[in-house]
């Protein structure tokens, strides 16, 4: 093979490698939630933890004032764990929906200006944000239902033999861990 062809082949390989690297960085950047998303996931997780807390102080008759520090601490920790699960599922769903839509979201790297290209880019951005909203709302719905179901199973059928405070901690911690673990396996 002549030197010229060897040089061309090497340049093509380098370009392909850079392309792959760029895609990997983009994926890693998108994999991290934005601040708004973090706040939303935490807030929804907190509400999902307050619901079973109500059951514990009404059915298991836990004293609300005495157990308030325990309720607060466990709810916050489980909300943080649950928020990770929400983001994992929304990330997975977003990529699945993008693939199904059949639209190419990669930016055109050409020097020539295509007619109506700016308008198309705007519409693509709009579509991407709509898909993000769809993925986030579906993730919140699915994970919340799953979490509530697991908490109820743990609280009333598995860990009910323990005292009410122990039951509360175990059921919420196990449920949030299971939901987040299963959501992380979807990404892998």
């Amino acid at each position, binding site marked *: 093979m002549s030197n010229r062809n060897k040089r061309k082949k090497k340049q093509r390989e380098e370009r392909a490698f850079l392309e792959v690297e760029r895609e990997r960085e983009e994926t890693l950047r998108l994999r991290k939630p934005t601040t708004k998303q973090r706040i939303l996931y935490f807030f929804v997780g907190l*509400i999902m933890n307050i619901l079973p807390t109500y059951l514990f102080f009404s059915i298991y008759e836990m004293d609300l004032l005495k157990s308030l520090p325990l309720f607060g601490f466990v709810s916050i920790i489980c909300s943080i764990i649950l928020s990770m699960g929400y983001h994992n599922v929304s990330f997975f769903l977003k990529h699945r*929906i993008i693939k199904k839509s059949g639209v190419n979201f990669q930016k055109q790297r050409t020097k020539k200006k295509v007619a109506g290209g700016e308008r198309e880019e705007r*519409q693509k951005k709009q579509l991407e944000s*709509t898909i993000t*909203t769809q993925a986030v709302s579906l993730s919140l719905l699915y994970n919340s239902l799953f979490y509530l179901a697991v908490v109820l199973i743990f609280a009333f059928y598995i860990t*009910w033999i323990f005292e009410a405070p122990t039951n509360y901690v175990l059921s919420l911690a196990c449920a949030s861990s299971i939901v987040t673990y299963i959501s992380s396996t979807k990404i892998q």
Partner: protein
Amino acid sequence: MKILLLIILLLTSFVFAAEEQANLVVEKDILVTTLPHTEEEFTILYTIYNVGNGPAYDVRLQDAENFPKGKYSTVLSQIDTNWDIVEAETNTTHAVILKRHAVGSDFIGPAKVLFKNTPNGQDITSTSTYIGRLNFTPKSPGESRKSPNWEHWIIFSVVAALVLVIPFLLFKKSEKKKKRLTMNLRKKK
């Protein structure tokens, strides 16, 4: 004649005075909807009715024997108490909140009420009604969960449904918008 009249008046006053007698009827109740468990509070209510036609002086309620200190502790008020006077045809109440510590069975007998017809008179004893045998068992962890608790479950379901309907509606709205945008982009191609 006058002396005879005075004697008759004195005799009649003694008769009337002797007729003014207090008569205390005491009711003792336990105010619970279900049998109490160990370490669970329960209320004992004493109601004293003076059905006589004279006041009862120096009324003393004594019931500490039925609730020995080793087994029971008072949460609010005290078991033994006293009143200076209970007027005729009136009633008075006394409540005490107790807690039992040990598992076991007790016969809660009648309380004793001591009173006097006159301030310096002799003590008269009256006994109250009794509660009977109470079995104190420990509260099992699963006991509350076995009862229906319908109202709590209904509240929980309604609030959960309200919270979950918001992401569902958001999903439906964004689904319509996505379809419209996708069709627009595909047409241009």
